């Protein structure tokens, strides 16, 4: 059985040689004329500000942590899935319930994570979404506009709805931006 891994080891070796050759050949062929500005880090043409190795959001750390936990869970699923199909009916029920208990306990954790909002990437977004269903917030929100009101290119076939009169002949720019209210 181990002999099956020898060609794989050879493949990994070949891949390593290939990678090394790519770096080595380009190092050999390419010119090397470093100047001060070439070897500064790229920040869209302006001088780099400070060091790039800043602290970063804890979210990434949390995702990595949750990944480990669910990864271990899926690792247990592999031998289960491989052996499940070849069992007798009674044993299948046993296997299934065994794994169902395992996954059910983990699903408690999953719902806990969901409830705590650990999987919501943007916490402010969550707060807005929760409150956005109340009529007060809905009323406060500015109407979505596409910028064509100010330019005067408005669908002329469309009849004005309700009390919102289209401001085709708006006297000032501010009036239009403010939502066409008088």
């Amino acid at each position, binding site marked *: 059985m181990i002999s099956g891994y020898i060609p794989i080891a050879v493949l990994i070796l*070949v891949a390593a040689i290939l990678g090394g050759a790519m770096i080595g050949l380009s190092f050999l062929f390419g010119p090397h004329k470093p100047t001060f500005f070439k070897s500064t880090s790229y920040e869209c043409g302006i001088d780099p500000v400070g060091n790039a190795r800043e602290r970063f959001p804890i979210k990434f750390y949390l995702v990595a942590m949750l990944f480990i936990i669910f990864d271990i869970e899926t690792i247990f699923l592999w031998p289960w899935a*491989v052996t499940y199909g070849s069992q007798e009916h009674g044993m299948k029920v046993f296997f299934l319930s065994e794994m169902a208990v395992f996954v059910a306990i983990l699903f408690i954790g999953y719902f806990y994570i969901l409830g705590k909002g650990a999987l919501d990437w943007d916490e402010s977004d969550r707060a807005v979404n929760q409150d956005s269903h109340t009529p007060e917030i809905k009323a406060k929100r500015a109407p979505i506009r596409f910028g064509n009101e100010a330019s005067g290119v408005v669908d002329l076939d469309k009849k004005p709805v309700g009390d919102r009169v289209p401001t085709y002949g708006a006297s000032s720019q501010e009036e239009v931006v403010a939502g066409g209210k008088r």
Partner: protein
Amino acid sequence: MIFPEFVGGVHLPPLVPYIALAGTIGFILMILPGLIWIERVVIALMQDRSGPNRVGPRGLLQSTADVVKLFFKEDMSPKSADIKIYYLAPFLTVLCAFSAGGVLPLQTLTFHLANGDFQTVPLTVGDVNIGVLYILAVSSLQVYGVVLAGWASNNKYSLLGGLRGSAQLISYELSMGLAILCVVLFSGTCQLNKIVDAQSGAPFGLPLPEIFNGSIFSWFWLGTGIIPVVIYTIAMIAETNRAPFDLPEAESELIAGFHTEYSSMKFAMFFTGEYVSMLVVSGLNAALFWGGPLPPLNIIPFTLIPGFVWFITKVMGGIFFYTWLRATYPRLRYDALMHLGWKRMLPLGLVWLFLLAVVSLGRSPAKSADNVPEKPVTATQQVQTLPNAVAHR
């Protein structure tokens, strides 16, 4: 096709893995410039513009010219970078990408042995028991190329791209694993050649004509109920950082993401790694859900074409799908990406796996596909059998 055991005094069957190795590496190196050309031409067609048309007929030699140019470009490195890790990152990317293809089932070769028997040998570099897990393990190491490139460059855009990329890779690995588990549940093995064998029967075990044996209807894309193949396809696009999941290298916000500071061949190595990964995950998709080297219908013109041609055709279908998606969809927002991975695909995959397990409760026990005894073995039994094992020598 049936091959003789000896050709010119050379014993062929033990050489098959090395033939597969040379074929895989050679094919990948040969097709790489072609892939880039295909992608550019297909996108140009979809966007109704010309595409590459200067170097060679129909711009065919454009990618080759690009590779030659990249070899002779200046090998720059930022002076604030951690230079050893800066060079290690593209190396790791290429290493992981090329090694991952080691267990893909290209074809099954039949040898006519000297004693009159027939022996089938899979045309695979390493037809090992852990099969799919090997690909998952190697591609889980791919995250290092991304995160180290981002960190070592000492550039803010690179770091952001590296972080985004690594979080994305690990998030979608879970869904990918669950989708593959659905297939493993039905095939009862992780070995890819045996997963292909499990798809060669009649569709759903129905008494249909011979023509449907191992046909497109008995492959696992339908057999596992379509949901796993959808999950796998989405996860494989995210795993290879391709549009619409190309956030680690989102050019409109991060310049080039984790490889902003890489020039010349080092940049091309990330590119190579990405394309080889695309080939490998498409190959895995073909083997798991689309029958691998099996022809779509079991009738004569299809069955005459050798299996590896079908396999490559299916892989190319995957590559076309990638390109199609890239031309069609805009990039996802990062929170939407995490939302899709963690809140949609992960629970859906797990629930679907259990649904499939419940469905297969009624099936009669399948014969074990692995050559492993059915009875459990304890460590004490194992020690007790030791003297016997020695006596057999």
